[in-house]
Each structure stands twice: as structure tokens, then as C-alpha cells.
């Protein structure tokens, strides 16, 4: 009971933190008298990647964690500096953050005329909000599972203790309900990938749900680059473990008349790519949608410009967060399950 109260209080704090930061922005914009509170801009700024980790906007200034910028250009080579130098539309070493247009939020080079040089865009390898969030998730995951492995060395084959009793059922779930039903006796070879993908997605999903202190709350698995990399891994593993029967199925589908092959081969090749593509889009869309819904519900307060709406909004946000907790597990499960399924289609012996 006590823990539940504490968690509830924590949630309240977090939510009020989020609302205060939004509120601050709202006030600022109103004082400037330029524009009304724009929910879509606010939400998309939170969803999209950025070079700084915005925490709070007060009347005086903005509190944010400025992340390192790493740029690569043909002329200047590698440039590493803090994103603080680009804050508030500053230009540093001929770079600036684009404010509008196609390149909004991206770092661009400024040419001698003081205009954006679209020909010579720098390659941006910055540690953005998403990258830092992902890195933190990876470090948390590493610490968690390395200590788990150590505890296995200590306890040997006796019953699971402590952290083991919490994580082992999930590992066994991945093994017994995802890997073995799909891959059969070949499951062991693919277990490391499936476990890594499952926990990487799960930790990132869960961290994305916790809105406040900085390594949390980044929209990592709702970033298409990350889901792309994960889907690419599944794609590569599928292709490289594909056996003769898999390739025959693509280039000489059994049971299909000869004259249909010119149609079937392109269809099968599209199928090769559409499977991981679906993986990429599914994870990205689900997590992004969850973040958008939660933020939209908070935005309701500012859209109607009434604190009276806050309890309703907070209630719905809590409801959505519970739902998102389920989605976090579900999406990690679905991604891993479908990866196992696609790999199993490539390695199965016969049809």
C-alpha cells in the first residue's frame, strides 16, 4: 500500500512537472503575444529528436541539458561542441539550427552570404536526445543483465533469487513462447538476438513512458532510425540464415506454373523487404502514437486554457500510461515474435 502511494505521488510529481514545463512555454508565448498555444507544434517538438534536452522554460530563460554536437563536413572535418553554442539562434563555426522549412531542427551550414547552404549540409553524428536516451537504456540493460549473469554464476543451478526471480520468467517467456514454438530445435542459435531485441525495445519503451528526469522520457523506440536498425538486423539475420528451400521459394516457387514466375519473383522479393518494413513501421507508429496521445491529453489543459480541466486530463493520462505500459510489453513481444517467425520461415526444412 505504501509503495503504491509512493508511486502515485511520483506519478503526480512527474505529471505536474510536464505540465509546468508546458505551462511555462504557454505563458511565454502569450506574453510575446505572437501566437496562441499550438498543440501540434508542442507535441511534435517532444516527439522529434533534438540536440538539447529541454527540461523547463521559465519566464527568464530555458533550462535544458545541452547535448554534444558532432558534425562532419568536407571542409572542416570533424567538429565537436556543445549544443549550447547553437541555442537561441546563435551561429557557431558557421553552423546553426535551422528554424523553419524542410530542415527545421537540423544543423545547417551558413555560407558567406549568411544563408543556409543547402548544397553543403554537414553530416550530423550528434549525441541527440534520442541517442542519449538509447545509450542510457543500453547501459541500464547491460548493468541489469551482466549482474544477472553474475548472480547465475553465484547461485549456480539452485532456484532463482532476487533479480533473477523477476527477470528469469521474462527470459524463459522469450525462450518458451517466442523462440521454441517458431524455431523448434534451432532456437538456441537465435536466442541471443531475440533476447537482445526484446529487452532493448522493452527497456526503451518503458523508459520512454517515464516522463521526467532526463535519461527517461525520450521517444527512442518511436524514432524511425532505431526501429529501422532493429528491423534491418532481423532482415539480415533472416537472409543470412535462409536455406536452399527459402531461396527456392523466392526464385522458383514450388507449385507455381512456369509462366507465372515473372510475376511471382518480384512479389516474393517485395515480400522479403515488406516483412521487416512492417516491423519497423509497427514499432515506430505504436510508440509514437502513445506519446502523442499522452501529450495531447496534457495539451487539452492549455488548449482550453483552464486549470479546471487538469484533473480530467491527468486522469486520462494515467489511464493512457497504464495502457502504454501494456503496449510497451506488447510491442517488444510482437517485434520479437515476428522476428522469430520471419527467421523460422527462412530456416524451416520443407513446406
Amino acid at each position, binding site marked *: 500500500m505504501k509503495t503504491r502511494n509512493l508511486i502515485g505521488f511520483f506519478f503526480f510529481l512527474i505529471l505536474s512537472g510536464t505540465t509546468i514545463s508546458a505551462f511555462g512555454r504557454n505563458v511565454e508565448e502569450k506574453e510575446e503575444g505572437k501566437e496562441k498555444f499550438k498543440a*501540434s*507544434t508542442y507535441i*511534435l*517538438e517532444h*516527439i*522529434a*529528436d533534438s540536440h538539447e534536452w529541454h527540461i523547463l522554460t521559465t519566464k527568464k530563460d530555458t533550462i535544458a541539458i545541452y547535448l554534444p554536437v*558532432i558534425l562532419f563536413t568536407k571542409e572542416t572535418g570533424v567538429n565537436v561542441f556543445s549544443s549550447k553554442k547553437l541555442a537561441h539562434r546563435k551561429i557557431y563555426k558557421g553552423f546553426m539550427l535551422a528554424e523553419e*522549412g*524542410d530542415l*527545421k*531542427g*537540423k544543423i545547417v551550414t551558413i555560407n558567406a552570404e549568411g544563408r543556409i547552404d543547402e548544397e553543403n549540409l554537414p*553530416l*550530423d*553524428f*550528434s*549525441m*541527440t536526445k*534520442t*541517442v542519449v536516451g*538509447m*545509450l542510457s537504456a*543500453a547501459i541500464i*540493460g*547491460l548493468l541489469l*543483465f*551482466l549482474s*544477472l*549473469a553474475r548472480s*547465475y*554464476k553465484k547461485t*549456480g*543451478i539452485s532456484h532463482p533469487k532476487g533479480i533473477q526471480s523477476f527477470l*528469469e520468467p521474462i*527470459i*524463459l517467456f522469450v*525462450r518458451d513462447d517466442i523462440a521454441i514454438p517458431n524455431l523448434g530445435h534451432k532456437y*538456441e542459435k537465435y*536466442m*541471443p*538476438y531475440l*533476447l*537482445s531485441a526484446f529487452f*532493448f525495445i522493452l527497456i526503451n519503451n518503458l523508459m520512454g513512458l517515464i516522463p521526467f528526469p532526463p535519461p527517461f522520457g525520450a521517444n527512442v523506440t518511436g*524514432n*524511425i*532510425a*532505431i526501429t*529501422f*536498425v*532493429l528491423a*534491418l*538486423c532481423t532482415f539480415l539475420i533472416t537472409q543470412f540464415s535462409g536455406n536452399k528451400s527459402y531461396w527456392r521459394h523466392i526464385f522458383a516457387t514450388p507449385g507455381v506454373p512456369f509462366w507465372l514466375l515473372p510475376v511471382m519473383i518480384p512479389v516474393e522479393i517485395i515480400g522479403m523487404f515488406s516483412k521487416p518494413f512492417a516491423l519497423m513501421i509497427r514499432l*515506430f507508429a505504436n510508440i*509514437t502514437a502513445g506519446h502523442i496521445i499522452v501529450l495531447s491529453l496534457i495539451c487539452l489543459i492549455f488548449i482550453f486554457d483552464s486549470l479546471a480541466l487538469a484533473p480530467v486530463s491527468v486522469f486520462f493520462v494515467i489511464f493512457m500510461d497504464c495502457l502504454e505500459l501494456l503496449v510497451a510489453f506488447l510491442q517488444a513481444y510482437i517485434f520479437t515474435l515476428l522476428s522469430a517467425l520471419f527467421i523460422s520461415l527462412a530456416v524451416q526444412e520443407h513446406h
Partner: protein
Amino acid sequence: MILLANSLTTPASGTLFWSALIFGLFFLILTKFAWKPILNAVKARDELIKSSLESAEKAREEMSKLQSDNEAILRKAREEREGILKEAREMRDKLISEAKGKAAEEAEKLVEKARAGIESEKRKALSEIHEQVATLSVEIASKLLGEKLKQTGEQEKLIDHYLKEIDFNKN
């Protein structure tokens, strides 16, 4: 807004690079130092549990087999005991009856012997009596014949006298 949404669906090269690097390292490190030891430990435990269950099952089967064996042995022993007892009883009865028969026979024999003895004694006695009677008769006759010649009256007295003398009962 649409443009920002567009940037959402376009993977950024830097993020691609970092996510490939981070996920790659995450995968490699965990595969080497976490997944393999964990999966091996879990597998070893599973196998241990499986084999222990199997051996327990086997032991249980052996137990029940032993028990049934024991029961069979016990039953057999009981049957044997019963048989032995029965045999003993029969033997005893037989012995008793045999002994009884023998005793009766023996008794019969004894009685027979006694009877035969009695018979022979009797016959002997009778023959003795006969002999004596004959000798006495001869004596009496000779005496009678001798007396007759002297005195007829006297003779009769003598016969009576001698007859009185010969007391049959004395014999």
C-alpha cells in the same frame, strides 16, 4: 507541421549510426557475457530438474515393484506355512490313527494269545483230568474187581468209600 512529421518518418543518418553502434554493442556484450551464461545456467537447471524427476519416478516405480515383490513373497510364505501346517496336521492324524490301529491290533493279539494260552491250559487240564479219571477208574475198577471176590457187601461199601474219597472238586 507536415514537414516536421516528414522529418519524423525520415531516419536521420546520425541516429542510424548511433543506434546501429549502440544496439550492436548491446547485442555483442550481452551475447558473450549475459545470454550465454544465463541460458546455459537455466538449461542446466532444467536438465537437472528433468533428470531428478525422472530418477524419482524410476525410484518410485522400483519401490512399487519391490513392494509388490514383497507382497508376493509374503503371500507365498503364508501359503507355504499353511501347507506345512496342513501337512503336519495330516501327519499327526495319520500317526495317531496308525498308532491307534497298531495298539488295537496288539491288544487283539495279546487277547488272542491269552485266549489261546487259556485254551491250551484248559485242554491240558482237561486231558490231565481225563488221564486221572482214567487211572482212577482203572484203579477203582481193579480194586473193585479185587474186593468183589472177597465179599459182595463189603465190595459195595468199598466202591462208595472210594468214590467218596475221590473228590472231584479237589481236582
